[in-house]
């Protein structure tokens, strides 16, 4: 849609440990995953298994202890510099002193990229997430779902080619959350980014993904990858289809196996 397209993400034998004084905490062990351009992949796993850590590694916020990560063939740091990454966190993390429009403009301002084209870009993104009447509102004047839409628009700004979403709907109520899933899919359809989406909800993973990487804990690793061969566009009501249920059961079993060890 904005011409930046999507990017392939390669995770190769990545391990991550944190130094805790004398101790060492092994959080990720030998994780490999190849995410194709434009693919929607969910990382599904119990909390504490290292999903956020993996996402932060891909985003270049932390460095792997060993192994390599490539975003469009480059290091995450280079991807950052190209503004190829768009983060969305569980908390919207908007700047409360900025209006919705000013928050979405922030990525354009960083490294001085402002200009007329930026204003058009901001407006388009705000329309894209359905906040056209709210550009001059401050975050605290918005509902949780609307804040998360604004955070999504901000992440899409400048032309991110990979969206890194860390339980972005995790603090929303069930109804808003369901609506946001389909909203996100619509935006993804229009904008075809690569999306890596962290969740611990099985139905969320099945609803959204092309593929689901199931993770298990201590140390975190990918215990299985499941292709979700459901037709697109996905629509509400699909949760009751037999295929959907059988995928859910498969993922459920994989999660249980991981947890049993």
């Amino acid at each position: 849609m904005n011409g930046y397209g999507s990017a392939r993400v390669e995770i190769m034998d990545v391990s991550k440990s944190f130094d805790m004084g004398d101790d060492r905490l092994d959080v990720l062990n030998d994780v490999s995953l190849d995410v194709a351009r434009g693919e929607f992949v969910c990382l599904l796993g119990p909390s504490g298994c290292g999903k956020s850590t993996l996402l932060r590694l891909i985003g270049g916020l932390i460095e792997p202890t060993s192994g390599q990560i490539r975003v469009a063939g480059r290091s995450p740091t280079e991807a950052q510099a190209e503004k190829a990454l768009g983060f969305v966190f569980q908390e919207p993390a908007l700047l409360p002193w900025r209006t919705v429009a000013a928050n979405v403009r922030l990525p354009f301002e960083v490294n001085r990229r402002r200009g007329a084209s930026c204003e058009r870009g901001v407006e388009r993104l705000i329309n894209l997430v359905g906040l056209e009447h709210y550009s001059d509102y401050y975050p605290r004047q918005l509902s949780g779902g609307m804040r998360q839409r604004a955070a999504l628009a901000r992440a899409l700004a400048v032309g991110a080619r990979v969206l890194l979403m860390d339980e972005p709907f995790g603090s929303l109520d069930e109804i808003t959350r369901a609506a946001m899933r389909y909203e996100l899919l619509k935006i993804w359809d229009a904008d075809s980014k690569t999306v890596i989406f962290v969740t611990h909800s099985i139905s969320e993973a099945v609803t959204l993904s092309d593929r689901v990487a199931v993770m298990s804990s201590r140390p975190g690793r990918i215990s299985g990858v499941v292709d979700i061969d459901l037709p697109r566009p996905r629509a509400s009501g699909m949760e009751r289809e037999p295929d959907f249920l059988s995928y859910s059961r498969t993922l459920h079993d994989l999660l249980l196996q991981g947890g049993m060890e």
Partner: protein
Amino acid sequence: MIPSERNVEGRALRTGRRRALASALAYSAPPAATLLIGGLAWELWTRLSAVPEYIVPAPSAALGRLASDPAYFAGEGAVTLGEALAGFLLGAGVALMGATLMAHSRFIERSLFPLAILVKVTPVVAVAPLFVIWFGFGPIPKALIAALITFFPVLVNGVTGFRSVDRGALDFMRSLRASRLEIFLKLRVPSAAPFVFAAFRVAVPLSVIGAVVGEWFSGDRGLGSIIIVAHSNLDMPTLFAAILTLSAMGVALTAIVSAVERKALFWHESHEEL
């Protein structure tokens, strides 16, 4: 999203404003009434008990002295105010620069913070005579004392504030490869503002104390030296008039800081209108 939601929010903002006005009244009327009643009781007491004026003057005597020569008190008040504000600006400026350095480097913080605590625990009154020797009888030593007294609260809150940054917002900025300067200006400074304003609210009256203490030690200008002279002459109405001028100055300064704070921190939960 839903049009009716907008209207609800607009209405909430309007009633919020009206409520803010009402609450401002609710907060200022009772203390004003208390002050008035207390003043009347005091007036009545000095008249009935015939307590000598060189011990406790009637409020009317103090106000009368004030009214007899308002230009005098205003002029000397302006001297004190100038010293206090110069000191405040200097102290707050140095403190914010120090806080900026400390917030970015634990090493600098470890090296400088103990010194800052030394400054804090040393009673300013004890170094005031020294400043007179070093910097003479003019306004400079007074401003420096005011600066010294302002320094610490602003420094501490500045460091805390610059570090009190939302983790997600910081991660987002870093994921854009924002420079340290950009993160500082776009994220740390606004995040620190609530802390810094809290420090200002404490430091502004402190800077007036600093200026007055400085005036006690040297010079013949300012409300502080009026107080010293009036004290040695047992001229209580003048002494009380100077005190009243200082109180009025304190109230005005606090009101100004609060007003600026409300404007600047409209987004912060401490100024929630809803």
